[in-house]
């Protein structure tokens, strides 16, 4: 029985992190898949969302500014807004230039954001990071939540304490995973709606043939900034969820460009850029490979260190982590060259009124 609980919890954590990455991939899909904007600063937007959420919702602390103890949804919403503001700033400067410049600028802003988080020790506690970030559902069992309204209306702190003691200590895990999957589903539905709406078709037109879109009176720059900002807001939300999952965030290791930006890119490209379902599929697939390969590598290292006792397993462990990163990078190159449209290729939205035959070279319509 105990073993099954262990497997169940592993599956739940796979779903949780996979879901968070799926939200990142959906955000990137708006920017890259819909509008063709090359953003390599995902980690920066994630950090903005995560830190905003963390500073607004933690209990008041002497290590960093505030700890305002605001309700969790407010923290997540403000995280989204802050991330969108940063994206708007970048978009205004770079979107009219060629894609390479946007790439350079986004990778730059991500580094600058991390630099600010590292240096402004009064606000963010610098490299030591922010800890005790409240996690959805689990936070109900924290004293500062059950001793204040609205929970205090339903029971005394003692009652609540007894209630939470009676639950298994992982009670929040299915709820947390479920909420993340629900958020992911809502975003998915909204993006599907946007994709088939005139807005989505206009985005495709701008991406595929900018002069034609401009000639037919579309405000290309404004629409691109729109897509960039919406994508960044989704990434900010995913960052806030990431902070909840980790509970301790710090600027360097938590927000490693390789593990956030790069993995998200591989997920989207593998799943199929431009396809929301592909983004989700890619995210879960890559995350499962990533997380399962850790188990395989640990097993292999145990095996090797049994035979070669002179090797230090801890060194092998760190090196194997980098080897895994390298293999994911090579996987990305293979997908880019051989299967550029990914597992689920993009399906072009056609006008609902259009006849299938009239869709012309755009292929399958839906």
């Amino acid at each position, binding site marked *: 029985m105990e073993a099954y609980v262990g497997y169940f919890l592993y599956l739940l954590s796979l779903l949780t992190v996979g879901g968070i990455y799926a939200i990142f991939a959906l955000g990137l899909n708006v920017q890259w898949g819909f509008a063709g904007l090359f953003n390599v600063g995902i980690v920066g937007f994630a950090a903005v969302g995560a830190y905003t959420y963390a500073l607004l919702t933690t209990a008041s602390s002497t290590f960093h500014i505030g700890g305002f103890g605001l309700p969790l949804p407010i923290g997540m919403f403000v995280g989204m807004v802050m991330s969108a503001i940063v994206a708007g700033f970048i978009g205004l*400067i770079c979107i009219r230039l060629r894609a*390479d410049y946007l*790439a350079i600028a986004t990778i730059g802003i991500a*580094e600058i954001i991390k*630099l600010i988080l590292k240096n402004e020790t009064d606000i963010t506690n610098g490299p030591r990071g922010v800890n005790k970030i409240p996690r959805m559902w689990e936070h109900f069992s924290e004293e500062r939540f059950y001793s204040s309204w609205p929970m205090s209306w339903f029971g005394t702190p003692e009652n609540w304490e007894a209630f939470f003691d009676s639950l298994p200590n992982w009670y929040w895990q299915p709820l947390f995973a479920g909420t993340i999957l629900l958020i992911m589903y809502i975003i998915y539905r909204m993006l599907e709606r946007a994709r088939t709406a005139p807005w989505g078709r206009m985005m495709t037109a701008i991406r595929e043939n900018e002069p034609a879109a401009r000639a037919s009176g579309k405000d290309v720059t404004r629409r691109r900034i729109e897509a960039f900002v919406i994508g960044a807001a989704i990434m900010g939300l995913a960052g806030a969820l990431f902070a909840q999952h980790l509970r301790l965030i710090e600027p360097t290791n938590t927000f490693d460009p390789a593990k956030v930006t790069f993995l998200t890119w591989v997920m989207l490209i593998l799943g199929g850029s431009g396809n929301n379902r592909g983004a989700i599929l890619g995210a879960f697939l890559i995350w499962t490979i990533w997380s399962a390969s850790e188990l395989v590598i640990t097993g292999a290292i145990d095996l090797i260190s049994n035979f070669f006792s002179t090797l230090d397993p801890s*060194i092998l462990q760190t090196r194997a982590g*980098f080897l895994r990163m390298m293999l994911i*990078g090579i996987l*990305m190159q293979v997908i880019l060259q051989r299967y550029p449209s990914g597992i689920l290729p993009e399906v072009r939205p056609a006008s609902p009124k259009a006849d299938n035959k009239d869709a012309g070279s755009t292929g399958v319509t839906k």
Partner: protein
Amino acid sequence: MWDAYLFEFVNFYLIPGLVLGCIYALGAIGITLTFGILRFANFAHGEIMMSGAYLTWTVMAIAGYAGLTLHPLVAMVPATFLVILLFLGTDRYFYKPFRKEDTIKVVMASFGMMLIIRSLVQVIWGPNQIAFVRGIAKPNEALRDFTGNIGAMIIMPNKHLFIFAGTLIIVVALGYLLNRTRIGKAMRAVSDSPDLAHVTGINVDNVIRATWIVGGICAMAAGVFLVMDTQMLETTMGFRMLLPMFAAAILGGIGKPYGAVAGGLIIGLAEELSAYPWIGGAPLLSPGYKTGVAFAIMVVMLIVRPQGLFKGRSF
């Protein structure tokens, strides 16, 4: 005239700024050439610099086992060949398939290469810092005595003299290559208009190969100069250099090697001088934000003058 303030300014801010500027300049030459000739922003450039420094260290270490003490500038030569091979190999297998396609695909491929090369270095050499040269660099005594006698004492370790001399030689050689030789002229022609160059009978493949070789030599020198200066090998140093190098290339104008040199020197100086106490006693900008200076300059340039100081290509 040469009071304590000026002494401090020149020796602790101006000279380190110029040294950093030389390193950025050499890195930016490669970036601006690839951007101008192959038309994409190569994100893997910093990582190739970094791997070049690691290779140089390895050559030195192997020679050390054999009882030879090699100067980094000597050990650099065999390592340069490996780096050029690395450049040509990545081009052949990862960039060339996309040459006829949308440029953004190549940028993505180079972004992937960045992580592949860094992970490879971390697998081989491990993620921890390695001391490149041990010990404290002593100032050059001849220079100190000479400048001290004429009343303007300059304290400069030998490594900085090597960096200045090396950068000067490479820039002069590059100028000769681009202005006097056939392949250099072809490179400039392709940078200006690839179609026209192709029609004139220039072998574009050779030009691309030459670009990687020139970029490889410059990147190699930049990487080795950087570790000569900091005396520390780190796997993240390539990535840290990437943003200032892009800023230098954009500041100088894309496709303009001399612009990249000027841009590199300006960015390096601006980064170091931003920490000088211009107003009052405290540094103008906290030294932690040095990297931010490069980014700020780049953003201002992109708003005001995207074609750069020297009228480069603006896309």
